[in-house]
């Protein structure tokens, strides 16, 4: 009997480094059934695989401990189930860490770790990369390979009754579709309803991006109380329609405009949004605003899920070295340009491809748009690639040396070197993927 039943899902994190507090407010005051924390970007998981390679007990999200510390007692007290991809490269180690924390906090908890996304052992190097149309090994040494799992991989974990479901690479909307399928008993073949659930998941997955985050513009799109920006929750009905809102008293706002921006965010084809669950159609979605900070979402649909799953591969792509220095006042741009050209001549032999950015003028937008603007301050940024860290460091060293060997009045020089993990994608037959669930639990009363 699901008639009239609603499931409330909050999203308390939209990326690995997201703020901690909004999730706490959601669990404290949001009367949630489920909390989702989406913390895994393509490159985040490759970096996590690197940490796991150094220490087999690592590889889960670096903020896992800080988030769980704040949330665990509240989740249990308010009977909110957590679904998160904070397991990153090592969901089982993440589950062990949560159990360790539960013991310390004196809280009983059951954790289900979902694995199976790590397909590194199946990768031969001969797979064709979607981006380059060449063998993946051509891009560089492969260090990680994670397939995007779907809602189907999370369902057995939800069936165990676990308080926390922790996983690695699962498609972001699937983190929301799974509890809806679990609660409403939707068929995974009901593409229309799964498509609607995917729309809701997509609207929610970036957390603050639907409540005024990444949206505010004080002149044309003012958002009140940005500093206390609340994260959203969705009240979903059995037919796949939903109302999205947020905890009263939190900052930010939910409007047709914030919802439209988020609906289209990162969508390469609104007619065909590929996930492991469905090929969703976003063009039939309709949005209404019935009240302040509330959006009704109706419509959306889908077609049969793809037979292949996307695999994200991390590879070693060398190092990027960079240096920055600022010029200000009369002819700041001319002095910065002289500095840039000087560096270019000094490094020409070692770095044939050198990026020169004039920050404050033409560093991020097409140069033609800056033609009528004269900047007062300019920060020169120089960047280049190298195969070793020591070589990459040369760029920053040369920029720093502009102090005494460059134009007048340069200041605030900084230098950086970063190892680069590149990401490419390929497809894998879904029948090759076997996901599994590992239960870890701690019963405080049993002691």
């Amino acid at each position, binding site marked *: 009997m699901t008639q009239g039943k609603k499931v409330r899902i909050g999203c308390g994190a939209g990326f690995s480094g997201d703020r901690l507090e909004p999730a706490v407010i959601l669990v404290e005051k949001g009367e949630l059934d489920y909390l989702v924390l989406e913390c895994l970007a393509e*490159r985040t998981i490759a970096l996590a695989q690197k940490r796991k390679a150094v220490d087999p007990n690592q590889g889960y999200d670096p903020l896992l401990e800080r988030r769980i510390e704040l949330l665990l007692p509240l989740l249990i007290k308010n009977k909110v189930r957590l679904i998160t991809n904070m397991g990153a490269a090592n969901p089982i180690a993440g589950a062990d860490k949560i159990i360790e924390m539960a013991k310390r906090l004196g809280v009983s908890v059951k954790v289900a770790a979902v694995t199976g996304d790590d397909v590194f052992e199946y990768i031969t190097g001969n797979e064709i990369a979607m981006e380059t149309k060449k063998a993946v090994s051509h891009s560089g040494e492969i260090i990680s390979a994670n397939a995007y799992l779907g809602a189907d991989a999370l369902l057995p974990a939800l069936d165990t009754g676990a308080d926390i479901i922790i996983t690695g690479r699962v498609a972001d909307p699937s983190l929301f579709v799974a509890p809806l399928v679990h609660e409403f008993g939707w068929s995974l073949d009901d593409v229309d309803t799964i498509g609607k659930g995917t729309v809701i998941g997509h609207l929610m997955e970036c957390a603050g991006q639907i409540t005024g985050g990444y949206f505010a513009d004080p002149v044309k799109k003012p958002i009140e109380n940005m500093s206390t920006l609340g994260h959203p929750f969705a009240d979903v009905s059995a037919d796949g329609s939903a109302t999205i809102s947020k905890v009263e008293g939190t900052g930010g706002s939910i409007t047709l405009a914030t919802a439209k*921006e988020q609906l289209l965010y990162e969508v390469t084809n609104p007619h065909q949004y590929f996930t492991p669950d469905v090929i969703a159609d976003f063009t039939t979605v309709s949005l209404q605003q019935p009240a302040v900070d509330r959006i009704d979402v109706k419509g959306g649909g889908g077609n049969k899920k793809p037979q292949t799953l996307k695999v994200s591969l991390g590879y070693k792509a060398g190092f*990027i070295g960079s240096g920055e220095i600022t010029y200000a006042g009369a002819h700041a741009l001319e002095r910065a340009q002289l500095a840039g050209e000087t560096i270019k001549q000094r490094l020409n032999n070692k770095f044939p491809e050198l990026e020169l950015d004039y920050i404050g003028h033409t560093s991020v*937008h097409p140069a033609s748009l800056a033609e009528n603007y004269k900047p007062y301050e300019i920060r020169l940024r120089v960047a280049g690639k190298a195969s070793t860290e020591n070589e990459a460091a040369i760029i920053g060293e040369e920029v720093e040396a502009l102090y005494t060997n460059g134009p007048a009045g340069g200041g605030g020089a900084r230098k950086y070197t970063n190892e680069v993990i590149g990401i490419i994608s390929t497809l894998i037959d879904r029948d090759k993927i076997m996901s599994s669930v590992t239960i870890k639990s701690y019963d405080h009363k049993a002691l």
Partner: protein
Amino acid sequence: MTTKLYDIAHSRAGDKGNTLILSLIPYQEKDYKMLCHVVTVEKVRQHFKGVINGEVIRYELPNISALQFVCDQALSGGVTTSLVLDTHGKTLSYALLEMEIEI
């Protein structure tokens, strides 16, 4: 009358690999048809000359009165290995809004 898109519409930029995705959403839904007429694929390609090196596809979403531009080969090789400052192209929503149109 010449106006900037900024005055009548808003935009959010997203990325997938080397593909830049830009939404264009009028503040007033009645302006949607006019934007469909004026902000053509060719105009966007010209506006982002030197940035977009591949195909541009425009999707129309009349249900929510919005346009979506999907621009191939526009992020200097892609987020993870590019040397540019804004590897995701996140600031480019406001580059689109700099476009001047006749209304």
